[in-house]
């Protein structure tokens, strides 16, 4: 009996945390997505006598009391139920269409390159190299950079008039296509090390016996990779892919700090659009609808991919 209660007691903080920071926002935003939310302040402004430290009225030279302003107010929030209107708006909003396209290009390009580069680097570092520990440490440093800071850092790097890459003549931030490439580059810079690190750990986890046995059967390095190493890596590759996919779809910080979604809306991701809709224009219901649509889409993609991959490799 006591054991059960103590267990419950120890679980409470976690339960409280999940309820407060996960379940409540989920339910709140779901509720908001079916409403049009407006606020206003109802106020009454009155003049009341100004009092001194003893509580006596402060008087003017002519004997009349000095007054102070007192505002009696109440903030009124109106939740107008609009059904599925906010979700319908998504399909007629050209900004959403642009943001979906931007997000899709970003996710496909960034995640693919990160995975590929991470894998290649892991293979490279999985052998004896002079100064390998130092190089490995340097390789993973970008992971520790705050994405917003990385965005500002790359703003100076991509600066076209005198920045370190200005000599290339590439309109890094002033051309719609190149601006998106710039965002992708920053993400690759930051997250390739993560892929590299996980793949390297997985590679080093493959028992030497496997490889030695394989070498007895064939001299072909390619065959060993294909038949022994890759199958061992697949579960890790799948996990890294799903993690990166879910993370990349939410891209926000770099966009906000590097391009603010521009030029035009050329780099405006769905997350950034949702943020601006909710916190720039205070269209909270519609912002919630966009966020939910994104959430559902990502969950669908991840679930389908996960099931598919499990069915193939399980």
């Amino acid at each position: 009996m006591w054991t059960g209660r103590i267990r419950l007691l120890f679980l409470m903080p976690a339960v409280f945390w999940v309820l407060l920071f996960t379940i409540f926002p989920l339910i709140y935003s779901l509720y908001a997505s079916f409403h049009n939310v407006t606020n206003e302040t109802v106020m009454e402004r009155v003049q009341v006598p100004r009092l001194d430290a003893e509580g006596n009225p402060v008087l003017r030279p002519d004997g009349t009391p000095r007054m102070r302003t007192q505002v009696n107010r109440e903030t009124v929030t109106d939740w107008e139920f609009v059904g599925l209107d906010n979700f319908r708006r998504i399909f007629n909003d050209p900004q959403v269409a642009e943001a979906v396209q931007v997000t899709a290009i970003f996710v496909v390009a960034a995640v693919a390159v990160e995975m590929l580069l991470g894998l290649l680097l892991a293979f490279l570092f999985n052998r004896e190299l002079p100064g390998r520990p130092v190089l490995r440490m340097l390789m993973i440093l970008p992971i520790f950079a705050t994405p917003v800071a990385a965005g500002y850092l790359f703003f100076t790097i991509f600066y076209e008039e005198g920045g370190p890459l200005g000599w290339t003549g590439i309109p890094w931030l002033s051309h719609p296509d190149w601006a998106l490439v710039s965002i992708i580059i920053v993400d690759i810079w930051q997250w390739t090390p993560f892929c590299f690190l996980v793949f390297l750990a997985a590679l080093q986890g493959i028992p030497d016996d496997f490889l030695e046995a394989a070498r007895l059967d064939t001299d072909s390095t390619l065959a060993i990779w294909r038949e022994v190493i890759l199958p061992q890596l697949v579960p890790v590759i799948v996990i890294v892919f799903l993690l990166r996919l879910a993370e990349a779809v939410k891209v926000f910080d770099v966009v906000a700090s590097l391009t603010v979604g521009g030029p035009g809306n050329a780099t405006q991701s769905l997350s950034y659009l949702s943020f601006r809709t909710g916190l720039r224009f205070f269209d909270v219901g519609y912002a919630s609808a966009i966020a939910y649509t994104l959430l559902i889409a990502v969950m669908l993609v991840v679930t389908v991919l996960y099931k598919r991959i499990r069915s193939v490799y399980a």
Partner: protein
Amino acid sequence: MPKLLRLMLAAACTVALTPALAQKYVTWNDDGTVTLRTPEEYEGEFTIAQEMLGALFGPGEQPFAGEEVTILSLDSGPKGGISGPIYAFRPMWEELTGATLTIALTPISELYTKTFLDLRNGTGEYDAMIVGAFFYGDLINGNYILSVDDWMESGDFPQWNYNPMPASLRNIYTWDGVGYGVLNDADGQILYYRRDLLNDPEHQQAFEEQFGYRMPVPPNTLQQLKDIAQYFDGKPLGADGESISGAVLHLKVREQGLYHFITLATSFAMTPGPEMTRTNNVYWFDPVDMTPLINSPGHVAALEYLKELAQYGPAAQVSWSLGEAWDYFLRGNAVFNFSYGDVAPLAQDETRSSIKGKIGSAILPASDTYWDMAQQEFVTTEEVRKVGNVTGGSWHGVVSALGDAPDAAYSFLALMAMKPMSKWLATYGWNGVDPGYDYQFLEPVGEAKLEDYLQAGWDEQDVTEYLQAYHENFNAPTMLPYLRITGTQEYYDVLDSNLSAAMSGAKSAKEALDDTAKAWEQITDRLGREEQLQAYQAAIGWEG
């Protein structure tokens, strides 16, 4: 010396020095005046009649002792534009009132969000906010700010009033005749040009040979401006002999890039007429049914013009905000820039500018061709009409209805708005408070004396042209109507992103403005067409 004695001596010194230190910024003089000082690094000192501070203030009086005021401002740092003066005046105000002032700063791009998050959620964290005039539609609609008229009339607070403001600026500091904003900044865009280059006889002659007419200084029409920009573009006249650009613009999306277009399009899109009608002197929406006018052929022509002009500037300017474009111009790398009142004052700072004594200023030239909305055709005229503008934020303080210390918050804003302080702020340009009021303009149109500005380090011709240009701009017979209806931020954002798409080549001018008009219709329908129409009519003074 025994330890106890040393401690006692230190304590005595502290007691003796504390009042002196506490009285560092305010001195009540025997002749009925009071001397107010900023911290040394700001070099401001004002001696004024004591009664100018209002009846609440006097020797030994600290009317808001113990109160805590928080003010939200855009962040340019303690010595930067708009936020700098708050730091400069805080110590003297704290000493005068006994209250404490907390300065909350946020990047300009976040100011609207921070302001309205606080107001809409009813948090009331800020007692006062520095806002752009285009916030007013939302501020008034939500009942979020307090009128300042009663405070002004009470005589209890630092004395200032709206009278020195031209009607164009007064209009955006007030709503429906009621005062809400406390006098501070005056924004508008004028043309800046390199006076030395345009007046150079060699260039005059070469220009005439190339274009067949004498180069006018300053240009009178936008078409002349483009010709001059084209003439100079690429010539080795920039800093260190580099190529100079014809013009430089700040076009970054969501960083005030849209204002170039808004200002420029006036003379293309506003059909001249003696008064405002459904087709004359209107700019944003049809004042009868809220149909957007932003994609009128006049607006489209203006955007096409802007794209052509941008060809004579650095390609990177599409991603430049104000600071980058200004620096490019101040370093001597462009012939033209049209922007806010900060540019000429910054040009006087030789640590960052190479064009002191070379910067000319003029009201923005006008197009020689405009769209006649009634006749539905373009009209070319030799009598161009220059339209004034108060484009920008004219950043100033308002008092929150949700704060706990409205009187104290107002007293701080009012202190900064007093004539000597306001004049000082305009004279020294680092602070982002740009001139626009009678006492800031030079005699005979204003009250200021040339010496005031020369003492502040200005070049005589630079400041004379600059103040003249702003006086003409703010007092122009026809002004660009200022958009400040509910949702202005959203209308602006759509326009901004489409303009940016056009300037970066992703859309044609017509596509960009058609898309804008379509999105504006959706916004209007969502916010309520009838309510929006009423607000718009009130904002532009439409009388039917």
